[in-house]
């Protein structure tokens, strides 16, 4: 009897979140899978087309371009951000004056509104009035037209993200570094190892769980870049920054191709699952030491 009452109580507490979960998360996920099999302009009656949307997107060069752009963005982003964050975390992983102030300063970009950053960055990289080309000009360099240059637009957009999330990544890595027992370093120092050896044989292996966490979550996030593209380039110039998320938005809500956009969304979802699984496998097969 008590058991029944406990269960009822638990589900009462869960009820609101369960409604939100089922109605606004689970149902839409099934809905999008179903919609991807239809041809529909959001008005009138949808018509069933089977896998036609998937066939069409596989043959669409614009889809392939946006896929390529997305991967390019992730590759510009994640390595730069992770290496920078690791260097900062290593620098801050000691008792020092002002350590806390530096930490707050580095995390300050993390909570900035990406839309506002898009505006600020467009200005900083403005060919004539922006700070970057003004500084380059002082060094006698004629800076490019950053956001209207197909070769430079994507690196500029990626740099916004690196600027925004390096501090956040640094904080997580710093927590990981602080969890490594310092006796290990002392013992290794007695054994006459060099700092480089200690880094590769102690720090890096023991930091693996934290690195894994930031790589997975940052990669998932990067695959979904939208706001900065929307504000800074609208996918241009000439489709050079048309990433998957932006392409889905355009297909679904500007061209009203609900079925096609849903199929694209399924592809993005599949891609994220695939990359996450690959990261899992890669980190799984390495030894993880547990000191807890």
């Amino acid at each position, binding site marked *: 009897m008590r058991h029944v009452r*406990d*269960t009822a*109580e*638990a*589900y009462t*507490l*869960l009820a*609101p*979140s*369960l409604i*939100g*979960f089922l109605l*606004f*998360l689970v149902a*839409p*996920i099934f*809905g*999008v899978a179903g919609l991807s099999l239809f041809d529909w302009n*959001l008005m009138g009656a949808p018509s069933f087309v089977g896998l036609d949307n998937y066939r069409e997107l596989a043959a669409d060069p614009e889809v392939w371009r946006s896929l390529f752009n997305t991967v390019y963005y992730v590759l510009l982003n994640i390595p730069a951000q992770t290496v920078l964050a690791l260097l900062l975390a290593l*620098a*801050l992983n000691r008792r*020092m004056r*002002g350590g806390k102030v530096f930490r*707050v300063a580095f*995390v300050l*970009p993390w*909570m*900035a*509104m990406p*839309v*506002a950053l*898009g*505006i*600020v*960055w*467009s*200005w900083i990289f403005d060919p004539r*009035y*922006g*700070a970057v080309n003004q500084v380059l000009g002082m060094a006698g360099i004629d800076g490019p037209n950053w956001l209207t240059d197909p070769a430079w637009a994507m690196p500029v957009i990626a740099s916004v993200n690196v*600027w925004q999330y390096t501090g*956040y990544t640094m*904080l997580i890595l710093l*927590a*990981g570094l602080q969890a490594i027992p310092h006796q290990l370093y002392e013992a290794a120092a007695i054994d006459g190892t060099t700092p480089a050896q200690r880094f590769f044989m102690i720090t890096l292996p023991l930091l693996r769980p*934290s690195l894994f*966490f*930031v790589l997975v979550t940052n990669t998932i996030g990067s695959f979904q870049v*939208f*706001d900065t593209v*929307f*504000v800074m380039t609208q996918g241009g110039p000439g489709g050079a920054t048309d990433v998957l998320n932006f392409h*889905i938005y355009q297909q*679904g809500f500007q061209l009203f191709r*609900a079925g096609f*956009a849903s199929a694209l*969304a399924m592809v993005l*979802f599949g891609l*994220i*699952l695939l990359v996450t699984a690959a990261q899992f496998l890669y980190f799984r097969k390495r030894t993880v030491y547990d000191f807890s």
Partner: protein
Amino acid sequence: MKRTQLKRTQLKRIALYLALFMGAAVAVAPYLMTLNSAFKEPARVLTTPAWEPAVPATLGNFAKVWSEYDMAGFLLHSLVYAGAVTIGQVVFSTMAAYAFGRMSFPGRDALFWGYLATMMVPQIVTLVPLFLIMREFGLIDTYLGLILPTAFGTPYGIFLVRQYFRTIPRDLESAARIDGAGTWTVLTRVVLPLSRPILATLATITFITTWNTLLWPLIVTNGDAVRVVTLGISALKGQYSSQYHLILAAAALALLPLVVIFLLFQRHIVRSIALTGLK
């Protein structure tokens, strides 16, 4: 011998601080340059470098975007949107987190894994169906349409609070139970007072995320009725892309409230970010 060694460690220390200081400068510079330029007279925004102080300073740019371009309205709409989502998230995530973290009932683990699994689903996946649901209920261009999808608590929020609840000693709750307290009393009188740091963190992070959201408002609103600040300033940028004195003042107004909130709660936030990485 000893002297040179001392010098070397000192040099190393100076180099370290120099590197950290440069990093911090890069992190803060865009904020400072934006704020600085927003105070400049319109002509001087284009003719002087971003780092040259705004002398003479003017409030004209702020005044113009505030009233003429209705930044006041955008900010108000965002405040209501982010405020309502934050309250819902904190209340409902806490309730669900307590059930998941502290009670045993059939289906608990399967359900919890279901919640966690959806954290990997990209936001864009649910967008078309969510739009259709809101259209069906006639909620396009309303606060309810904006708020509903995230107001019942997100898997992330539930996960964060549940992890914290599990660190609270069970004895405290047992003692209250023996005194005859029911689940609701235990939750509100015993557990919640001990959970202020994590609730402050969740509230801050939810407010920040919602305040910054572009994609959902872009889909579910299309008029001025509840236009939020992300939409307001991106439209402003589209319309006045070369009038930097206006769009920078608007960007500053969108960025600053969060800087203030962040600095107020930075202790909690910095600690909780560090914690999320440590499983």
